[in-house]
């Protein structure tokens, strides 16, 4: 449930001297040119409160400029080269800083934190400081064309398997309670010990497995850092490979989970006026259908292949990938990843054209007037409905193959 705290600025007593909240704000990576705007933003978010702000290798600033901010320049225990997503190094550094300064809660803000509204940062902090919550995840208000991998795979899979509500399981702005930070650091240390500082960690699944309370906070505006690599295959290998491995590792947990996440309230959205060109994505799918059919046949059951055959002959205007077809495709790829039916790099490469077909279908649908979030909720619901299919195939991959 998205928490919407009241205006915390008015709720905070103005005593003149800053009040210590015990909050540590860890800025993952800040470019020197945006350091000052970022700190101004934080100072505006906490006008009467003293907060610790840690950032790697920040230059010494005039302390009178931001009197409420207690700056902590530090040298990261584990360096990271990735700045568009939170990595194992970020979680480990956060925990070490929080432990060192005995922080009562930790706010981990990703690259581009200066583009967030001060009120959003404050809401995130207050939700984190509330005693009942261990993990506070940002809920970004992205456009219909943004964060498509999240909408197509990460969110529906996390919601269906881990019964967790957060719309952005890999949000780059998080609030962590001390025990959550410790748990994530323990997982992160396994990676950093083997020099995998840029490995991804899934905080939502960690919190679900640990039985920790998860909350969401609305972040209406934010500019997201984009990955340097534009190769979708390489990014799929990094992100989806990590998620599929996490699913494999947590199999004993999610097979037992039966609860259904209550549906979200979706506000009606205006129909996009700009014309959407999906031709290249559909061409990609058609080319893949004629070339990768043999590889797909190793992964997908006949029923799904039949669905793809129907999809391949659909005209562009009415191109629509059914939600349950997409759910089954993803589930079958998760299973093939586990069983190593084919090389894992090849497997994720073979998923790319199918994902592009889903994107094309999604864009055509929202062009027809369906709200983007409505469709994403329907997809998530289809994943939840078809979860028994994954569980059955996971347990009896040879016996249960429709």
């Amino acid at each position, binding site marked *: 449930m998205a928490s919407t705290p009241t205006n915390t600025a008015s709720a905070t007593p103005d005593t003149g001297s800053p009040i210590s909240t015990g909050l540590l704000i860890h800025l993952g990576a800040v470019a020197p040119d945006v350091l000052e705007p970022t700190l101004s933003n934080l100072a505006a978010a906490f006008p009467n409160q003293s907060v610790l702000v840690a950032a790697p290798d920040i230059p010494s600033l005039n302390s009178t400029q931001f009197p409420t901010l207690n700056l902590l320049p530090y040298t990261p225990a584990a360096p990271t080269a990735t700045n568009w997503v939170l990595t194992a190094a970020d979680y480990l550094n956060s925990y070490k800083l929080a432990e060192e300064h005995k922080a009562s809660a930790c706010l981990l803000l990703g690259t581009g934190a200066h583009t967030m509204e001060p009120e959003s940062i404050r809401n995130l902090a207050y939700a984190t400081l509330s005693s009942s919550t261990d993990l506070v995840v940002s809920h970004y208000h992205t456009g219909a064309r943004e964060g498509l991998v999240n909408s197509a795979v990460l969110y529906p899979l996390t919601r269906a398997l881990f019964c967790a509500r957060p719309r952005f399981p890999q949000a780059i702005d998080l609030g962590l309670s001390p025990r959550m930070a410790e748990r994530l650091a323990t997982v992160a240390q396994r990676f950093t010990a083997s020099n995998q500082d840029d490995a991804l960690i899934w905080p939502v699944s960690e919190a679900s497995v640990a039985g920790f309370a998860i909350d969401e906070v609305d972040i209406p505006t934010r500019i997201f850092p984009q990955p340097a690599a534009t190769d979708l295959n390489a990014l799929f290998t990094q992100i989806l490979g990590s998620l599929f491995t996490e699913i494999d590792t947590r199999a004993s947990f999610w097979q037992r989970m039966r609860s259904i996440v209550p549906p979200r309230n979706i506000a009606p959205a205006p129909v996009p006026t*700009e014309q959407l060109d*999906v031709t290249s994505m559909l061409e990609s799918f058609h080319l893949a259908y004629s070339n990768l059919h043999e590889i797909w046949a190793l992964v997908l059951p006949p029923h799904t292949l039949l669905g793809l055959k129907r999809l391949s002959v659909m005209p562009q205007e009415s191109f629509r990938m059914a939600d349950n077809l997409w759910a089954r495709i993803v589930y079958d790829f998760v299973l093939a990843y586990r069983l190593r039916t084919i090389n894992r*790099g090849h497997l994720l490469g073979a998923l790319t*054209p199918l994902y592009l077909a889903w994107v094309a279908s999604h864009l055509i649908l929202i062009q027809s007037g369906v709200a983007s979030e409505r469709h994403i909720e329907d997809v998530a619901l289809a994943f939840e409905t078809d979860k028994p299919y994954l569980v059955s195939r996971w347990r009896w991959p040879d016996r249960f193959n429709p």
Partner: protein
Amino acid sequence: MWQQVELALSQSAHRALVTLANFLPGLLALLLAVIILTVIGALLAALFKRLLTAIRFDERLSRNSVVPLDWAPSHSPTLLVARAIFWANVILGFLIGISAFDAAYAGNSQMSFFLLPYLTHSVGAILLFIAGTLLARYLARTVLIEAVNARLQYARFLSVGVKWLVLVLTAATVLDHLEIGGTVVDLAFGILFGGIVLTLALAVGLGSRDIVSRSLEKNVDTETFPPDPAYKPPTTSETLRHF
């Protein structure tokens, strides 16, 4: 005369029996070496499997992006290591056995002089053939998937071409290793390999004609052309953000 025939037969039978008597200990040594090393291999494989499972070897390897993802697609890295250890031991058993066989045979027959080197070459050739076939399949799939994702219309052709390149190279290496064919193999390999490369180059060149022309067109100064009022800039998917 009958006595001479009888003598020749008895001498022949004696020689055959002596040869067999010399042959059997070598064969027994070969079998014994293979069986013992197979048992040791099975034990070592089980030990390593348990050890690697305990240290979560698969998990570590799959999370490490630097290490290429599993070459043996249908088996986990742990299983692959265990099997490699097992088969390495079996092969070692064969080598020791053959060596013992050779030692038992050396002074008595010319057969080992020709047969044994050929046998060891055959083992090498079989390994080369298996490795080449696996590599061909792996590269063919890699090229096919990458080419499809790069939207190359001739993806399958490219994939088949790469597959046959590797297979031809493997076949030539295997024949060369077995010392079969001599210069004929070199010549045939040169012709076939060159032919496939030329065919692929032509196919890629002709297939990429449109891409090259579009690339060149982009470099032409567009201001030299009068603007078309009816022209609408194509909406592209460039504004899409997958992450």
